[in-house]
């Protein structure tokens, strides 16, 4: 079985990897590139824990073949903070205690960032529907929604 050579950009860095044709982008991020922030909760696009942006579009990396990333730009949770400075969303998740176990948190952050890039002033309902594909079993979503709304407000003000 021959491997595919892929040149891509991950969080702004040029990255090359060899992958099997059947490997997903999530597999490669976690097992070949060493970025384990995106998690596999289901492998079927139902939980959103593996959320990344692909050319600026929010996707489940478990539903993208690694080979498809050729020539594309991938953004993961690892690319959200600017050096020591956390992204507003990251800070708000901490401030609102909007995580318990934290395994869904990377996916929630990537998804919420994509939302606020598209819609800086979402209603609570819009946030809830946008994040419907990000399952969280610990929090009941309450604090997550508050954190995202608060981050949106702060980002609008800034």
């Amino acid at each position: 079985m021959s491997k595919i050579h892929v040149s891509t950009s991950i969080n702004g860095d040029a990255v090359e990897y060899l992958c099997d044709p059947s490997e997903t982008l999530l597999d490669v991020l976690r097992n070949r590139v060493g970025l384990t922030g995106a998690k596999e909760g289901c492998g079927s696009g139902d939980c959103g824990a593996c959320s990344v942006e692909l050319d600026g579009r929010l996707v489940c990396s478990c539903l993208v073949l690694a080979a498809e990333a050729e020539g594309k730009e991938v953004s993961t949770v690892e690319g959200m903070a600017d050096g020591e400075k956390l992204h507003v969303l990251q800070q708000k998740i901490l401030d609102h205690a909007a995580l318990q176990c934290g395994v869904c948190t990377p996916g929630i952050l990537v998804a919420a960032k994509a939302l606020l890039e598209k819609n800086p002033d979402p209603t609570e309902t819009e946030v809830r529907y946008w994040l419907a594909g990000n399952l969280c079993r610990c929090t009941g979503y309450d604090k997550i929604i508050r954190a995202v709304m608060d981050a949106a407000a702060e980002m609008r003000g800034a």
Partner: protein
Amino acid sequence: MVTEYKEGSVGAELGQREFKVVGTRPPRPDGVDKVTGRALFGADLTAPGMLHATILRSPHAHAKIVSIDTSAALAMDGVKAVVTSDDFVKQGGSGNQDTLDNCMARGKVFYDGHAVVAVAATSVMVANAALKLIKVEYEILPHETDVDAAMLDSAPVLHAGRKFRNIPEGNNANVSGFWEFGHGDIDEGFAKADIIVERSFKTAATHQGYIEPHATLATMGPDGRGEIWVSTQGHYMVRDLSAAFVGMETSQLRVTAAEIGGGFGGKTTVYLEPVALALSKKSGRPVKMVMTREEVFRASGPTTSSSTDVKIGMTKDGRITAGQAKPRYQGGAYPNITAMLGAMTAFASYDLEAVQTQAWNVLTNRPKQAAYRAPGAPMAIYTVESVIDELCQKLDLDPIEVRLMNAAKKGTLSSYGPTFDEIGLVATLEAAKAHPHYAAPLGPNQGRGVSCGFWFNFAGNTSVSMGINEDGTVSVIEGNPDIGGSRASISMMAAEELGIPFDKVRTIVGDTNSIGFNDVTDGSRVTFSVGLATIKAARAAIQNMCGRAAQVWGIDADAVDWVDGAAVPTGHNAGEFPPMTLAEIAADSAKTGGPIAGHHEVNADGAGVSFGVHLVDVEVDPETGFTEIKRYTVFQDAGKAIHPDYVEGQMQGGAVQGIGWALNEEYIYGEDGKLQNAGFLDYRIPVASDLPMIDAVILEIPNPGHPYGVRGVGETGIVPPLAAVANGVSHAAGVRMSELPMSPPRILAAIDGAK
């Protein structure tokens, strides 16, 4: 000298004590790692030379294993080791043997998904390809997955010849447990009633639904020493069971808990860990195993499904005269005590003259149940709270007033045996009654549901150690995996007791070799028990530091007190010295006698029971049976809330899991005994758009058994939602619902049936 707080008189201390750290909301110490993707969960770990292992699982619900031929798989390129039940050590106790047999089927497979063979290979792909080359010959047996059907004499017997204790005559061989609780004369009680309601209920099995599948990495060398890194609620439990199953001494196995991506009771046992260890032993290489989501659903613990008959008598004015419940739970193919816990908790909220509960645990061809947040209580209390609601409806009485009239309080003889000490149910009910939610108007097709809930909370074996560092900071080691922010609350209690700021303390979860034994993170025990041990460890360190100050000052150790993070003379008679801070004492520790540390080991008791009351407004679409949660408020007695954000989080998370249980979550088996919905697509946990904000009202009724008054808070929140939502739906739909989940087809059928 160090003030010695007496347990049992703590209520008084609580009244006087002004907390500086406890009750605030600092950021959690593991937070940045978790928002940046740096935190390492079970599947994030790797080791050089690591193999990957996967498991061949039974396609049958019940079958005898006639033969297993792994030769072709072993011969495959890249395959390094294969294990079956033959590779594990037979266990002395039946409980451990059941756990082992569940990890790897021995002789028989008992459910669709039961593990049969495991293969370690150079990649997951190779391992999976090898599984296809394994030939297992099965003799298929009849199966049963329903609890009531499994109790019939015609049902297939799972464990023929196995004897279970204390089973009354007349029960078949699938009944593995029977328990009875209660007091008073039940017949006399019913005779006093003006009205009696009897009803039967069913609840489906639900899964804990943690987002992180089970994952482990094990390594064992030819020297017989092993290591495991694992996502678990209890790494000491993993150590003890894994070592026993592969036949090694406990001391030779070191287990480190990874960050855990949710557990809710589901990670209180082993599935992969002994298997990975055995494969590593055979192959001589580290072995990683990660379940797929499908495997999580098919083979890791869901909770029990239940069938329960309830009978409650009431006087016209709302006084309960007698209560009786007969829960029958199936928890899969091995014995468990969940039905017993259901029987104990069913009527725990009430002060009753006559109460009787009888519980049966029944074996079926389903996966071995695992604990799920207040195991047994949600389904039992659902049945009782539903009948109480129906009685209130029939008598036109206010459901909170009736609950207040009958509420258990200090001095009440509980339905499960002992007499209650200080408890918070009345305060919780009063808070619900006074809340604006309870008076808010309802719209068309809407209904309001109320339910009480109860959980025991547990304590148990706990070890904590802390070092006072020379720079005036403190390193705490505890041994319970942090499942919801406990490192924050433990750091807070250490800081509070030592009198230093929160950010001077760092708490980690140590591996099994770093401190003494710890029970599993379960039973809402961690903030209580680890907190207790942390406070006592801090007091030991304080005593040491007071001694150092006394020596420096040249006065008696008895003449030194600890105030606001510093040693001070107890009074003018002791001498005039400025306070000597923790940092100052620590800086000189090498000169004054060496390192300063404190530790405490205890089998803690006195966890303190907890009650909750939930209010929910629902709207039911009469044309589709769809239920929308319009408003939800949780009231819970938390004892002292150490970190209120995370207490609220437990209450909110528990409520939403309960909403899922009430409305849509269920294990669906086909006629063939196979699980039909082994994925998040059709096992429907609540998503963000299903819910409103969950308002959480914390009541702080101090637990006399803890220095700060802490009670466990993790589990109680999942107990009331089942009945609260069911009562709300019953009012909104105009028909009493008695089966969970109340999925839209069930509700619509009930509405149409009532027309």
